[in-house]
């Protein structure tokens, strides 16, 4: 602690340079934070996907349906605890850019399979009783300013016409990364409207298991049970299904990692150069420190400490700005399923900051450590 004054005095020696270096870290970590938010929005569903849930789709493609009759057969497989099903609706609310996912859901089993989506009992019962009812996720309701009781017109795409819904309730995710953008309505209403060839068909099944360890056995049992039928199935864990879904957008993870790596490498060069200049300017002073008894190791740690402090201040500032940015709300107005900076990203950001801080300070610090007092004083 007694050396803190010395470190602080050196940090503020060149105020403009200090502010600019801090600024470099702040901007880089702000970008890191925002990229982490975007990455989380795309892959967060994968991270929190239920390990005890399987998704069953048509082997040909997810847009091909599966018979409703499969439900009973799947339920009979040992280890299957619950089962629900849904269909994609793909309607348009007011304008195509107002995208949010709409699902026709099985009201009897939805809440047993997806307990993470919380809704009041009263709202749920109103929804169950109302064939024209709908439930919206909190993010989507907020995005469009919907309130319970509102009448919501959605233009059908593959089915056509305008579908009017009564908003009976709003659900909330019980975890931070739960998707609050979905819009649900009763599967039976959809089934009544579809052409005969599509009646009693669902888009996919979600199967809840007694034990996640059984996922491989049960997946195999389901797919084998419907092999060589007109509607062969493909069963996977919800995590694998979510990961496959994200992949359709391209390798977001790689893109974000690549951008982050370039930013941090540039930051390393900039701060490394700054630290090298800062140390070179103080050659004489470092020599005096050594002359009066400060050890080589002290000088090494002194320079690294300075570098780490700059990194920590700038990095914390940048991550703080990113946090504030996310608190300001989703700039895509709910297009992303969730928009928040997870604690793990903050920790990762701080770790990377310290790593860059240490790496940028290490070479000048070693130079300062090796400095010979006699040579340095001769240069002064």
């Amino acid at each position, binding site marked *: 602690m007694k050396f803190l004054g010395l470190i602080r*005095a050196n940090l503020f*020696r060149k105020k403009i340079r200090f502010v600019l270096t801090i600024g470099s870290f702040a901007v880089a970590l702000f970008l890191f934070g925002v990229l982490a938010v975007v990455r989380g929005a795309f892959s967060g569903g994968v991270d929190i996907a239920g390990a005890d849930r399987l998704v069953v789709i048509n082997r040909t493609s997810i847009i091909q349906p599966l018979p409703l009759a499969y439900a009973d057969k799947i339920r009979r497989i040992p280890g299957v605890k619950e089962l629900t099903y849904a269909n994609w609706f793909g309607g348009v609310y007011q304008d195509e850019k107002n995208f949010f996912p709409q699902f026709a859901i099985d009201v009897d089993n939805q809440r047993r399979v997806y307990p993470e989506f919380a809704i009041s009992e009263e709202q749920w019962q109103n929804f169950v009783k109302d064939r024209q009812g709908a439930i919206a996720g909190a993010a989507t309701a907020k995005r469009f300013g919907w309130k319970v009781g509102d009448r919501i017109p959605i233009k059908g795409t593959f089915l056509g016409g305008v579908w009017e819904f009564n908003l009976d309730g709003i659900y909330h995710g019980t975890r931070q990364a739960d998707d609050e953008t979905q819009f649900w309505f009763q599967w039976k209403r959809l089934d009544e409207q579809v052409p005969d060839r599509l009646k009693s068909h669902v888009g996919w099944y979600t199967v809840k298991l007694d034990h996640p360890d059984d996922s491989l056995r049960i997946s195999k049992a389901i797919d084998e049970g419907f092999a060589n039928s007109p509607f062969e199935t493909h069963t996977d864990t919800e995590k694998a299904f979510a990961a496959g879904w994200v992949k359709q957008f391209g390798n977001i993870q790689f893109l974000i990692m690549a951008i982050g790596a370039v930013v941090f490498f540039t930051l390393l060069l900039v701060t490394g150069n700054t630290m090298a200049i800062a140390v070179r300017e103080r050659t*004489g002073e470092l020599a*005096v420190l050594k*002359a*009066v*008894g400060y050890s080589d190791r002290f000088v090494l740690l002194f320079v690294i400490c300075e570098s780490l402090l700059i990194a920590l201040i700038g990095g914390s500032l940048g991550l703080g700005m990113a946090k504030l940015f996310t608190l300001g709300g989703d700039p895509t107005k709910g297009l992303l399923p969730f928009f928040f900076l997870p604690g793990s990203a903050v920790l990762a950001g701080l770790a990377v900051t310290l790593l860059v801080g240490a790496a940028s300070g290490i070479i000048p610090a070693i130079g300062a450590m090796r400095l010979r007092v*006699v040579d340095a004083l001769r240069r002064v």
Partner: protein
Amino acid sequence: MVRVDGSGGSNSLIKARGLGKTYSRGGEQIPVLQALNLDVEQGDFVAFMGPSGSGKTTLLNLLGGLDVPSAGSITVAGDEITSMSRSKLTQWRARHVGFIFQMYNLIPVLTAFQNVELPLLLTSLSKVQRRQHVETALGVVGLSDRMHHFPRQLSGGQEQRVTIARAIVSDPTFLLCDEPTGDLDRKSADEIMALLLTLVKGHKKTVLMVTHDPVVAARADMTLHLEKGVLVEAGRTQPAASGGVR
């Protein structure tokens, strides 16, 4: 009693024997100091003079443990410093040597107080004890009223006095001064020399000083000349030592 013939007794504070230093430049060996002997006792005030490149600063660096000799040995207060490792030597310097440089070499972002406190941060003294030591040292050099000034707010003479305070604050065994008045006007130089004499006479400090200025050298107890890497005793300057700088 200062001796250069190697006949010093066991009461020598600083004892150099057969001291040599050779630099290597472009494959060429350049001898700077050759088989030099020196004995300095506690309380001596010695001035080293000689032309540029004669090895004065090199000698000072060797005696202060800032450089290692190519040959010979140096013993200070019973410690053989030439066989010490670099880290041991650093610790030894902190305990035994006070440095005063021509260009002051104060840290510009620290106040006079903080500059003087620097050597004490390495000790186990408490904050209160450090404050007392620093205030005493600044009092000795007459800068009690400037302790919170930064170097840029001080004159050259005042900066050098802060350097002296920094050199004496940890009560070292001896002081090494490399052209302490070289960057000062005559009046300031006179004040610095008076201060060094006070340290020698009043506080029994041992001072070894390099200077180009014969007037300044005349204030020391003895002036030694370095010629081609060999020390030559120039004689005692007792009468001048008590007089003013002319």
